[in-house]
């Protein structure tokens, strides 16, 4: 427990937390702007299957309310990404996204596409000041804060909490497969039937899904690999070098699911990248490379 606490409350670069704010809020703005939430608006009351806090609503929000939530959510998320008025913009963006995604979850099925993004924003909500201490736009009329932001515990715990959330999410996805299906999830023809059913449900057969499903050995290998990556992802927390394996591993997993089944988990894949990449190190690396590049020669001006 002490080791977990020392991991979570380690000092971190202010820019790492700022990168989390910029990345997650920009991604949220993009998802709120491009997803079709109006698809479920104005639903007849009998079909409303509310989950969680959505049970407080008598029925699905109307089309007008949905559009208003989208506009407010996108604007608030962009302001939060810029580091402007984060005390208000972060919670407003999160609340709008919560209701809009809650609507998609209230039609009879739990939708996981954007849930990891929302769960990784949660640790930012109680830390708006720390989250906007670096890489933020100054609000009009505001004075520049005294002293450059450095490394501190205040910048570390939201980042580390988000990393744990991602790791636990993948662990439990793998754990539930073994819990409800056993090792047969990988050793039986389970994945083949999933892929055949998915391909058959589309207007045009999916050649990638059929390529895998037609080869039992390949389906078993991919199923076993999927469970391995999901269950072992938490190792990336304690052995940072393994992030070079597990982060590309889960991104490839989501890319494969998208290509073979058409399921869009891009928000989840991007969330993993935003949370686990050390962006200040990337920025410093790019700066050094740019500084080391030979500068173009300027033509000498003729005197006189």
């Amino acid at each position, binding site marked *: 427990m002490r080791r977990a*606490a020392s991991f*979570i*409350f380690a000092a971190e670069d*202010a820019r790492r937390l700022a990168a989390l704010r910029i990345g997650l809020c920009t991604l949220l703005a993009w998802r709120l702007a491009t997803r079709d939430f109006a*698809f*479920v608006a*104005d*639903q*007849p009351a*009998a*079909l409303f*299957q509310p*989950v*969680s*806090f*959505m049970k407080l609503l008598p029925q*699905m929000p109307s089309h007008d309310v949905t559009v208003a939530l989208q506009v407010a959510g996108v604007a608030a998320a962009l302001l939060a990404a810029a580091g402007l008025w984060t005390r208000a913009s972060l919670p407003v963006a999160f609340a709008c996204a*919560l209701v809009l995604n809650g609507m998609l979850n209230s*039609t*009879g*099925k*739990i939708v*996981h596409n954007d*849930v990891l993004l929302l*769960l990784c924003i*949660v*640790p930012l909500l*109680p*830390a708006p000041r720390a989250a906007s201490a670096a890489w933020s736009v100054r609000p009009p009329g505001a004075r520049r*804060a005294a*002293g450059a*932001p*450095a*490394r*501190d*515990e*205040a910048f570390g*715990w939201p980042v580390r*909490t988000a990393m*744990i*959330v991602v790791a*636990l999410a993948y662990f*439990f*996805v793998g*754990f*539930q*497969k073994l819990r*409800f*299906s*056993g090792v047969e*999830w990988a050793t*039986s023809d*389970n994945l083949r*039937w*999933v892929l*055949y*059913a998915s*391909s*058959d449900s589309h207007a045009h*057969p999916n050649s990638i899904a059929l390529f895998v499903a037609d080869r039992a050995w390949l389906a078993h290998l991919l199923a076993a690999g999927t469970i391995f990556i999901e269950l072992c992802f938490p190792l990336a927390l304690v052995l940072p070098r393994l992030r070079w394996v597990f982060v590309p591993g889960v991104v490839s997993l989501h890319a494969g699911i998208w290509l073979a089944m058409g399921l869009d988990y891009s928000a989840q894949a991007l969330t993993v990248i935003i949370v686990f990449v050390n962006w200040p190190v990337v920025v410093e690396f790019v700066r050094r490379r740019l500084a080391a590049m030979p500068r173009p020669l300027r033509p000498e001006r003729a005197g006189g």
Partner: protein
Amino acid sequence: MSDVGAPRFARPFVAVYLVAFVICALTTIEAWPLTAWRLFSHLRTENQLSWSATAIDRQGGEHPYPLGALPQGYRGFGFLMSEFTTGSPERQRELCDTWREGTGELLGFESRAVRIYELRTNLAQRDGDRAEPAERELRYTCRAGGVDAAGG
């Protein structure tokens, strides 16, 4: 902002958040956005059961009614059918009336009835790139004022 440390509420906040996260996963509670993370966790077999619907117009013509692909929240048709088959007669009638009355807006005509078919597909029996056509069996007919099981 330097050397200020984590705020006092940070430790209890993180503890409560992560404990809630783990409890929801272990007890399979869907306190969304906290979730049980059950993605493709059930074992699939080659035998697949699904549902389809058709709408009957005033002249008796039968038209495809792709409820699962329609807007305004009708897309949960497949999931609602598992509730429908075990639901009370009142709940079945409520759902049936909604689907039947939806044809005016969704298909452009008032329907006399909606027929719900059970589709049984054997994914192992392939015909080229596709499974062989599903066995279709009429299970329910939604008409004004009631639901008839297995035809009617």
